[in-house]
C-alpha cells in the first residue's frame, strides 16, 4: 500500500470522478485519504487466501426481464427535469469542441 496519497493522486482521481476541486481541497483530501487507507491496512491481518470475493449475497443469477415490455417514461416525463432541453432532446456541452 502506498505510504501516502499525493496531491497528484488526488488530482488524477478527481478527473476520473468528474469532480472539480480547489487547491485547498486537494491538500485536505490527500491527507484524509492517507489516514483512511492506513486504517484499511487492518484487513491484511486476516488470511483470505482460500476464499473468493462475495460481490452480492442474494445468490441470484441471470434475472431477466419478462418478454412483455412494460411502459417506460414518456418523452415529456423524461425531459421534465432536464437542465437544458433542446427541441425535445437533452442538451449537453458540445463534445468535439472540448479540449
Amino acid at each position: 500500500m502506498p505510504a501516502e496519497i499525493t496531491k497528484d493522486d488526488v488530482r488524477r482521481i478527481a478527473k476520473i470522478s468528474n469532480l472539480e476541486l480547489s487547491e485547498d481541497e486537494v491538500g485536505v483530501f490527500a491527507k484524509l485519504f492517507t489516514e483512511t487507507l492506513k486504517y484499511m491496512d487492518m484487513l491484511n491481518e486476516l488470511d483470505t487466501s482460500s476464499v473468493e470475493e462475495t460481490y452480492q449475497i442474494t445468490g441470484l443469477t441471470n434475472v431477466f426481464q419478462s418478454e412483455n415490455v412494460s411502459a417506460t417514461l414518456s418523452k415529456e416525463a423524461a425531459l421534465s427535469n432536464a437542465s437544458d432541453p433542446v427541441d425535445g432532446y437533452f442538451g449537453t456541452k458540445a463534445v468535439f469542441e472540448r479540449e
Partner: protein
Amino acid sequence: MTHKLTIAEAIEKLKKGEITSYQLTQDCLDQIDKFDGEIKAFVTVCRESALKDAQEADRVIKERGPEIFNEKPLFGIPYACKDNFSTEGIETTASSNVLKGYKPPFESTVTKRLKNAGAILLGKTNMDAFAHGSSTETSDFFKTKNPWDFERIPGGSSGGSAAAVAANMCIFAIGSETAGSIRGPAVWCGITGLKPTYGRVSRYGTVAMASSTDSPGPLTKSALDAALVLQVIAGKDPFDATSNPAPVGSYVQDEDSPNLKGLKIGKPKSYFDIELEVGVGKALNKVLEKFVELGAEIVEIDLINPKYSIGVYTILQRSEVSSNLARLDGIRYGNPRSEFGFEAKKRMMLGAYTLSSGYYDQYYSKAQKVRTLIVNDFHEAFEKVDLIIGPTMPGIAPKLGAAEQSPLFGELADMLQEPSAIAGLCGISLPCGMSEGMPVGFQLIGNHLDEEKLIAASLAFQNATEYHKSFPEMEAK
C-alpha cells in the same frame, strides 16, 4: 392527541369509528407545526395532499366499513418518508444540493406499495446527504435534532425519519440502511427500527448508495408496527433484479405473546468485549435476563471481531457509491456536480481510488474476500443459534458536532451493525431503557429471510416490557 398512537392502535380506532384519518393527519401536522421548527426532521411537508388523502380515506371508511382494512392494511395512516425515495411529482433531494428541486417522474416501489395499502404521505424527511453518514449532520440543508435532547444528534442517515417518529410527528416512517442507517438512529431516538434482509424489500426508486447492501425498512413505535409495514413493502419486484423471489412471510403474528421456549439466542463475545458506556452495558444485562425469563436460551458464541467490518464497509461503500453517483450528470436531471458536498466528494473519490487500476486487488478485492469470511462466520453461527443479540451502539446519542471529530465517525459508530449489513442479514433495534436521560437500545440479528423469528422475539420482548412506550417530553419554544 391521536398523533401519539401506534399503527395498530390507530387502525383499531379507525375501524370502530372512534377517530378519523383526517384527525390523525391533522394531529401529526399540528405536531410538525409545533416542534419541527426546532427539530427539523422534515425537508418537505405535503400538507394539502395529505389532508386531501385523509378526507378521501374517511369517506371510503364510512362507505365500506372496517373490511377496507383487509384490502388496504395501512388505510388512512399518515407516515413520513426518508428523502431518498422517489415520490412522483414531489421533490426528492436525498438532502443534497445536487438533487434540490428534482421532482421524480416515477414512484419508488416502497412508496407505491404503501400508497396502494392506503398509507398517507405526510412529507419527506432529512438525512445525511446521499445517506453518507450516521448523524444527519452532513445533510446539505440543515441538521436534525434528537427529540430527547435538542443538543444531541438523532443518528443517521435516517435521522429525520427516526426523529419524526420519536417526536410523534407521524405514525410511522420509512428509512433505508446500508450499514446502520435504520438501526442506529432508531436506538438513539428510542424507537424500533427494522432492517430487512437485503433483497426482501425493493430498492427500485431509491437513490442508490451501496447497491449490494442498501435495504429499505420501517422506523416505528413498536415491533408490531414494524411487522405491519414490512408485510406491505416486502416482496419480489420485477423492477429490482436483486429483490428476492422467496415468498413473503407472515410477519404480523396472531400470538399476543409468542412462546420463546427453545429459542437459542447467540451472545457474541466480540460484540460485548468492546467498550460500552456503563448505562448501555447495564441495560443489556437486563435484556438478556428478560429473554431468559421468556424462555429463550442464551448461547455464548464468537464472531469475527467487528472492527474488520469497518475496513470492509468503508471500501465497499465508497467503491459502490463512486459508481452510483457517477450517473448524476446534471444534464438529464439534477444540478451540476459542483454542488456535491464535502462528504460526498470525499467518498466518491476514495471509492474511485480503491477501484482504480493498480489498487483494485489490494482494496476492493481484499474487502470482498473479507466479506466472504464474515458471511461464512454468520453461516456457522446460525447453525448453532436462531438469533444473535448485541448492543446496537456502544453509547447514547452524542452531542451535535460529533460527526466532525473523525473522518470515519459513522463507520466507527456503526461497527456493530456493519457485519450483519455486509452479510445482508435482517436486524432489528429495540429500545431497552434510559441512560443519562437518553434512550438506550439493543439489536437482534436474524438469518437471511428469517424476519418471522426476529419479529416473534421482538414482540415477546415488547409484550413483557414497557420501554418502547416512552417518548420524549418536549417543550415548544
